[in-house]
């Protein structure tokens, strides 16, 4: 049994592409079970000591800036087309800059086709699994991440921003309001300290109180002695043999030199933008539509959640930045209730922006005295942010853009998103509710931001299905066509639900890891 560094021609290793929530969790589980893994990560390891409490600096440090293009009626295409997706290029992927919110999807969301019915223009489907089957994995994921409000883990202290949200929400009749469900230590746990209330969760957690895969799963996997982590290794192409099995990954190192790593099994966890892009760029004579794309659905059904944001200006100080970025949640609107004029639901969140992000990000292009009044009122601002379910739509897709090539000569990802009437109705409802909530808490003025936020939650582009004609992978994320190829990130999600996706991605990765271990132990003919 060899130890790292593994030879490029070692075809007994599992190659995992991407070290985010899905990839890092999978890698940890596989290596603990004795499986040898090469993990290819396009970015580098950024140590928490390198993080700065500086939102714009953090974007430059962490965010994937290789070009992506966009089109469609979504407001990003018009107002902020330079950056249609906000994902991280570093070890840990987007777990470096996430806010830590960890929710289970609701059973009816996993059975959206059954419960919402058919919706014109949408490709709703039920997930090919029993929702109850995920309970065990969600439970494991909550324990792994140290989610507050679960497993006896206390909530973080109440912040000012949450006080505003809670009071406004109660006054307009909401009843399910909480500041729990953070993957952020409220007490020392798992060798990491308690939260210092820095308020820069989304700039990278300097204290390590927030769960980020870069300083949790990855070091644990390395400690098994079976993981070889290759950073600044950009996967370019997955290669297959005449037998239609994946047999390795070609990647570029930091100097642009190409290497080919043989593999027993390949797991793609590059997020729902780069995973389909890689599969499409791996087209061959045998797979002319892209590797594992016999269904034609690789890249399709791209979902990103409906996001919307309203600020209120109060007469007295709030100091919304003094606490976690995700200050608290109102759950009432996450229910299914089509009397509101839309299917699916949305979470309302107290999500602060620091002054730089407020000035630069929440209202692209804003200028003049009407805007600078808000800047000067910064200590008296509070916000409500919507995270809502968007529908899987076949035309909303990640495709290859032949007009734009990356540094390696490969076509970049093009994101096409058209808003659906359901999205518009949901946003309209949210804006009315957010105004009411902030007003009830005492806000005198309101700033309703354009919904031009880049996609930070990327989902759906390699959807699960039981039938190979209607999806890309099976219920365990295994390709219908290429038996030793798995997808291990949010691409496999069939529907988006109203919930931030990370806990679901981790739960699915834990479940997939068990499945892969079983398949390898059985010496399944295909593996």
């Amino acid at each position, binding site marked *: 049994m060899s130890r790292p560094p593994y030879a490029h021609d070692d075809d007994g290793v599992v190659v995992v592409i991407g070290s985010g929530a899905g990839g890092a969790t999978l890698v940890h589980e596989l290596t603990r079970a004795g499986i040898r893994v090469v993990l290819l990560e396009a970015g580098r390891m950024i140590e928490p000591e390198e993080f700065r409490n500086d939102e714009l600096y953090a974007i430059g440090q962490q965010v994937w800036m290789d070009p992506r293009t966009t089109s469609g009626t979504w407001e990003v295409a018009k107002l902020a087309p330079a950056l249609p997706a906000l994902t991280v290029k570093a070890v840990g992927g987007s777990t470096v800059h996430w806010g830590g919110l960890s929710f289970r999807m609701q059973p009816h969301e996993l059975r959206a086709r059954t419960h919402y019915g058919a919706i014109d223009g949408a490709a709703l489907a039920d997930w090919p699994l029993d929702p109850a089957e995920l309970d065990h994995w969600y439970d494991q994921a909550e324990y792994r991440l140290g989610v507050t409000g679960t497993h006896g883990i206390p909530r973080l202290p109440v912040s000012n921003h*949450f006080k505003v949200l809670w009071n406004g929400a109660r006054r307009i009749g909401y009843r399910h309001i909480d500041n729990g469900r953070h993957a952020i230590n409220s007490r020392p746990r798992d060798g990491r300290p308690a939260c210092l209330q820095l308020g820069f969760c989304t700039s990278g957690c300097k204290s390590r109180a927030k769960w980020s895969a870069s300083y949790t799963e990855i070091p644990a996997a390395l400690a098994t002695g079976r993981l070889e982590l290759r950073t600044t290794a950009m996967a370019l192409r997955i290669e297959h043999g005449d037998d239609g099995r994946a047999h390795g990954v070609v990647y570029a190192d930091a100097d642009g030199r190409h290497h080919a790593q043989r593999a027993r099994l390949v797991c793609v966890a590059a997020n729902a933008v780069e995973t389909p892009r890689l599969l499409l760029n791996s087209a061959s004579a045998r797979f002319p539509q892209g590797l594992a794309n016999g269904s034609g659905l690789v890249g399709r059904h791209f979902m990103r959640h409906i996001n919307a944001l309203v600020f209120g200006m109060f007469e007295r100080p709030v100091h919304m930045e003094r*606490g976690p970025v995700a200050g608290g949640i109102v759950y009432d609107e996450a229910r299914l209730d089509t009397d509101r004029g839309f299917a699916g639901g949305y979470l309302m969140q107290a999500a602060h922006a620091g002054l730089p992000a407020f000035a630069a990000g929440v209202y692209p292009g804003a*200028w003049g005295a009407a805007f600078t009044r808000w800047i000067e009122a910064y200590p008296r601002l509070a916000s409500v942010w919507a995270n809502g379910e968007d529908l899987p739509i076949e035309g909303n897709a990640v495709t290859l853009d032949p007009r734009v090539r990356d540094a390696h000569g490969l076509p970049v990802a093009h994101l096409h998103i058209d808003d659906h009437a359901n999205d518009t109705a949901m946003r309209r409802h949210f804006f009315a509710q957010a105004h009411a909530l902030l007003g009830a808490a005492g806000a005198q003025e309101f700033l309703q931001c354009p919904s031009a936020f880049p996609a930070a939650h990327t989902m759906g582009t390699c959807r699960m299905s039981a039938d190979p004609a209607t999806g890309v992978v099976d219920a365990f994320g295994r390709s219908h066509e290429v038996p030793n190829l798995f997808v291990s990130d949010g691409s496999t999600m069939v529907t988006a639900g109203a919930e931030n996706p990370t806990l679901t991605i981790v739960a699915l990765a834990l479940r997939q890891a068990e499945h892969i271990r079983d398949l390898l132990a059985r010496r399944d003919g295909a593996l």
Partner: protein
Amino acid sequence: MLQRRSFLRLAIGLTLAAAATPGAATDDAAGARAAHQRDVLTAMTRLLYPHDGLSDATYAAIADTLLARTSADQALATTLAAGLAELDAAAGGDWLGAVPAERLALLAARESTAFFQAVRSHTMLALYTDPAVWARFGYGGDAWARGGYVNDVGDLDWLPEPELPQ
């Protein structure tokens, strides 16, 4: 402290701006043109992001750092020179001499131009990534340096305390 920082930035900016226009010391016309560009840009930055409490020197320093970028960015230099000249022309030759309402209207009419956006985005970033500006407007900035808000969190006292589920 604020004045010293502004002075230092002004001094650095002026030095770089002077270096960006070679021969400015000996060419009076070019020097006057550069000074006029600086004056118009300074007034423009304040119109874009007006704060009564920020000094003219603050805005002048922002104009200087923008002009300093033109030495390494010919496209920006061209955009600025052309945009400033066009703005003056639209005001009958002297934008600075127009009444405030007209100055603002002429500027706003050019919002979708590359010139406007170049000045706007530079000004916005220069102002709102400045810790001195943060301090003036009550934004805490770097929390790590002060050990976080763990002792202050939740100190808002003008709303009732939330009641949380067990």
